[in-house]
């Protein structure tokens, strides 16, 4: 049985598993190995681990070089540094030449708390999603984090995966089928669909419970792959429930909500409302619950948006 734990912790443990299985896996970090949990791999396979120090752009370029010589590099740092400081290397040195580099970044979103804006990765999904050839993942719980880590090692090509810092509850069955690009339906419902990624999947489930008490049945989808987005499942949600709410610990610009809205408006337009960081820099905070509530990004916000999207749909009909 998988226990609740931070997804970054499960990532570190799975790296050790991968190191055993696949001698071509190498791991890189940029002086945050304890946080990203790559230290677990370092301690087990020191000869296949490289800590490049505080030098994230350099780390991604070195990973590209390692991939060019047949290795499978997993390069880890915080979301903010992977997605912004190192991003041109991700684009031009990794994605463009389709090198087999896995960038796995931890400490996503505002939930990181204390460090504040300089360490909150809230633009990565928008940035990474705009880069051709790149697969973009944001798993929600330890079970799918493990499966995603194994899946991207198998997949031949560039990948970006974001993980949270805080403890994550187990939301999925051990036997869940995990496929890159396929959402997982966590709850059935015909009135409205809640599509979430990462830590917000838990909030979507809580919102669905709150809505159920009001007689609203919400479908909940775990959208662990932001790119390629699961178009079929989105279209099904639009057709069958006619109203969608998205939720992500990320800017409302360009991330999951945008990806979903793009598909909906191009195929079967129904009202979509997005929960996310609304074009502001968030504060430091001492606990994730208070911080997410303060920025209107928790389960209450999702439930409220669900009611609003239903009202909107009613008006349109």
């Amino acid at each position, binding site marked *: 049985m998988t226990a609740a734990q931070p997804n970054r912790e499960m990532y570190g443990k799975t790296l050790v598993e991968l190191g055993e299985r696949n001698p071509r896996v190498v791991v890189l970090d940029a002086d945050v190995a304890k946080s990203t949990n790559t230290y677990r791999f370092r301690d087990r396979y020191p000869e296949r681990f490289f800590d490049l120090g505080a030098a994230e752009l350099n780390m991604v370029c070195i990973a590209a070089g390692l991939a060019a010589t047949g290795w499978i590099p997993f390069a880890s740092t915080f979301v903010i540094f992977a997605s912004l400081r190192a991003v041109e290397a991700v684009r031009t040195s990794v994605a463009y030449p389709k090198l087999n580099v896995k960038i796995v970044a931890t400490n996503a979103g505002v939930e990181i708390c204390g460090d504040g*804006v300089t360490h909150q990765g809230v633009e990565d999904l928008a940035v990474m999603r705009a880069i051709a050839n790149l697969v973009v993942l944001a798993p929600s719980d330890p079970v799918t984090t493990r499966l995603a880590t194994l899946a991207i090692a198998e997949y031949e090509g560039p990948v970006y995966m974001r993980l949270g810092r805080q403890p994550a509850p187990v939301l999925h069955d051990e036997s869940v089928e995990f496929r890159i690009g396929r959402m997982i339906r966590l709850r059935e419902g015909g009135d409205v669909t809640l599509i979430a990624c990462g830590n917000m999947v838990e909030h979507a489930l809580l919102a669905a419970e709150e809505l159920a008490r009001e007689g609203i049945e919400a479908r909940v989808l775990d959208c662990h792959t932001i790119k390629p987005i699961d178009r079929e499942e989105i279209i099904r949600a639009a057709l069958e429930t006619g109203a969608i709410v998205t939720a992500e610990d990320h800017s409302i610009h360009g991330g999951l909500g945008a990806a979903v809205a793009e598909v909906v408006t191009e195929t079967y337009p129904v009202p979509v409302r997005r929960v996310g960081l609304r074009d502001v820099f968030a504060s430091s905070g001492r606990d994730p619950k208070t911080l997410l509530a303060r920025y209107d990004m928790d389960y209450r916000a999702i439930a409220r948006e669900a009611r609003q999207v239903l009202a909107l749909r009613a008006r349109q009909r």
Partner: protein
Amino acid sequence: MTSEFDPARLAAIARDLRVLILRMIANAGSGHPGGSLSAVDIITYLYFRHLRIDPERPHWEDRDRFVLSKGHCAPALYAALARRGYFPEAWLWTLRDVGSPLQGHPDMRKTPGVDMTTGSLGQGFACAVGIALGARLQGKTYRVYAMLSDAELQEGVTWEAALAAAHHRLDNLIAVIDNNRCQTDGFTADIVAVEPIDEKWSAFGWDVQRIDGHDFVQIHAAFQRALQPRGRPHVIIADTVKGKGVRSMENRPEWHAQPFTPEQAEVFIGELFEGGSS
């Protein structure tokens, strides 16, 4: 401040700031004790003896600027700013809380006395080069100080900025490197070595001095010398001890960002007054 140079007075202030740092981080529940304690003697010297500043006028145009490029050590800066009267000491107990004027990393728009927003290693220093360039363009005579860490010497932007500053002969710029020889994952020499630091900066065209960063006499002499224009930017490499002053933290990389309770903080404070180390 241009009072008499009194190393004993500065040591006493630094000790008070160490107490505030430890209590502040414990109260916030997270933060970076090790690097705050290695930096605080130099920060004390700057804020209580050296910088031309006026806490009554944090935006005074002609003030000296200080950029804490190693922004994670904000508690050391906040303690000094509070004691200099930039804001009430009560603010220190709101560190890292939602909506606090004291964010986890320095924020020039929220905290009076903070001259540049920092926290992404390497960027603060490059911004300081820009400030020095801006000052010279305006014909201003104030100095720009930037404090870097040894891990920041691993970031490419640090060297890009160092090249630019030397190219533009910015002798109004004084960088100080808090060389505590530790970073997050261990000893800097074991992660990606940065020594010989002095030779690197010399080769980049800087005026280089190297001192013991906990000896106020040496700190004073180095900053005095850095006031003399030499047609090139100045760097003071300060050899320091991570966790300085708290015996059980000293020179231990694991105290980079380890949380501790208010009760533990009081034990650490007890250690401060045992050794008489600073």
